[in-house]
């Protein structure tokens, strides 16, 4: 094998049978095939030799998948070469492929020598395989064009993988669903229910603001006349603070109560009694009723509530 000074450069020439060992095929080989065959005969460049050496060392490690490796290699090669019309690419691929196949076939000799000496058999085998592939008609299969004879194996593997993926995917989905339980992604933001809720809240705010404005405006108006106001204010403060002295924390009743009688119209309070559905705002009316005043003493009302309505369950501790 002569060293080709420029192995990468290829010209379309008819094959000169340099090698007497090679069988001559009856059909004249096509241009690509010729180039490929020609490439086989040339001694690979030094870079390529190094590459083959490295590959030989690599390939010796997994001898189990030799079969499949070959198969896959062949399939790859078979796909690669017809697909590119470019001679250079084809030949480079086939060179590599040929070299690796050569390495596969050479068992223990991990040197480039072994790769080179096997070249001829490798080339022959490759040629045979390639011509077979080209002759064969490709079925339109769901799995894509399968060029290897080990169809079943590959199919099985693919099916296995798919099944695995499915199982994993489902498990993941379930997990995510469990995490997201209760988390509602808002589909439609402003539907009727939300609008009604906003209206309720708006009503509350409006009431509050009206109260505030009434209280503050009237207070402003009254400031000149101090005596009456001062007395009333003092009264309120006492009333609000005396319950607080007893308890830890309490609702500020606001300075609301006396104003109720004098300033604010009674209608507001009546209205509140009627609308029990309206529950109280902050400065709420509900707390002025006596039965709820003592709510801040937490243990007592709790005890009384317990005795009243609900049976006291003496369970040890609480839920998680």
């Amino acid at each position, binding site marked *: 094998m002569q060293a080709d000074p420029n192995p990468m450069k290829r010209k379309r020439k008819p094959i000169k049978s340099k090698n007497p060992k090679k069988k001559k095929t009856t059909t004249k080989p096509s241009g690509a095939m010729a180039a490929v065959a020609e490439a086989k005969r040339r001694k690979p460049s030094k870079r390529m030799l190094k590459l083959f050496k490295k590959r030989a060392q690599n390939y010796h490690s997994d001898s189990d998948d030799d079969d499949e490796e070959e198969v896959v290699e062949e399939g790859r090669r078979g796909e690669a070469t017809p697909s590119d019309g470019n001679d250079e690419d084809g030949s480079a691929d086939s060179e590599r492929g040929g070299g690796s196949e050569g390495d596969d076939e050479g068992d223990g000799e991990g040197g480039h020598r072994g790769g080179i000496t096997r070249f001829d058999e490798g080339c022959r085998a490759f040629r045979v395989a390639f011509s077979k592939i080209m002759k064969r008609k490709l079925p339109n299969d769901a799995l894509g064009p399968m060029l290897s004879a080990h169809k079943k194996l590959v199919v099985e593997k693919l099916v296995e993988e798919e099944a695995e993926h499915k199982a994993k995917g489902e498990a993941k989905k379930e997990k995510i669903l469990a*995490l*997201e339980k*209760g*988390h*509602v*992604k*808002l589909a439609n933001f402003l539907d009727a229910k*939300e609008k009604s*809720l*906003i209206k*309720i809240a*708006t009503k*509350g*705010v*409006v009431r*509050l*603001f*009206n*109260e*505030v404005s009434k*209280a*503050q*405006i009237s*207070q402003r108006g009254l400031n000149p006349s101090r005596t009456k106001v001062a007395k009333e204010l003092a009264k309120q403060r006492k009333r*609000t603070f005396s319950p607080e002295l007893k308890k*830890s*924390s309490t*609702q*500020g009743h*606001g*300075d609301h109560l006396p104003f109720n009688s004098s300033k604010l119209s009674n209608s507001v309070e009546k209205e509140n009694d009627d609308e*029990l*559905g*309206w*529950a*109280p*705002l*902050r*400065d*709420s009316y*509900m*707390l002025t009723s006596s039965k*709820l005043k003592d*709510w*801040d003493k937490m*243990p007592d009302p*709790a*005890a009384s*509530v*317990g005795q009243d*309505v609900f049976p*006291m*369950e*003496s*369970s*040890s*501790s*609480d*839920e*998680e």
Partner: protein
Amino acid sequence: MARFKHNARRNKKWGSAKPPVLKKQPPSVDHVTGSKIPKSFVFARGKLPGPLKQLELDLRKMMLPYTALKLKEKKRNTLKDFLNVAGPMGVTHFLILSNPKSVPHLRVARTPQGPTLTFEIHEYALAADIARSQSRPRCPQDLFKNSPLIVLSGFGAGGQHLKHLELMTIMFQNIFPTIDINTVKLASCQRIVLLNYNSEEKLIDFRHYSVRLQPVGVSRRIRKLVQNHQVPDLRNLQDVSDFVTKAGYGSESEPDEEAATVSLASDLDRVNRASTKSAVRLQEIGPRMSLRLVKIEEGLCSGGVIFTEFGKGDGEANTAEGEED
């Protein structure tokens, strides 16, 4: 207890067993009403999945300013640790999120020995979801400077004074600080928390809104001009009077006029002036939850059970809780 006054970040090493403290101390007693300002801790027990962690952060934000925004909890912090810290800091309420059996629960408890209300979160939506679904999400700068107002509705429905409803009402009212209507500034009421009780389904809808006041009767263009200080586009108009008097079409989100208008007590800002009519417009921010009351306990996650939704079937659930205390 001076060491509790350190900055939260400096507590990395020795503070690993206890949760770090607030950066600055907000007043513990309201100077106006004289009542104690309730403060709260929002934390989680157990491992929470992603969205629930977000919910915890949203709840913390909602409870501002009287809560520990950057509260860090470790796995080995038990309830007792939080209780110990709560005392000197004046924290009155705990909001505890947990996820037992992958059903999120929220517990509202009053320290130190107050009752505990346990709610099951039926469904929730995060603040981020809501912001994403709105066309113009709005979050002004000082929205969280003041505590929200609470609006409760439907708790006294039907005239029946159920004890647990009353207890819920009181509890929720106590969580947020009170306001005094004589001195409150309307500008400081910027957030609303709505709790609506639905008695057929026994679900409580929880919503969190931001308040916006819009002057009524002013055309949209003029209002925008005053608010945004942007020079309007007068290309197609012949005269400025066209700009002022042109009847624009009303927007779809025009509120109901009568129900929502208030007359303000004072000037709010440039646009909303005293004794002019303004419309109250609410925009939703913050998490949205629907809760179902499951249990009320006497103590802080302990003690006798006053009320259970499901009857006596919670026996097995009780034992798991005992470990936490």
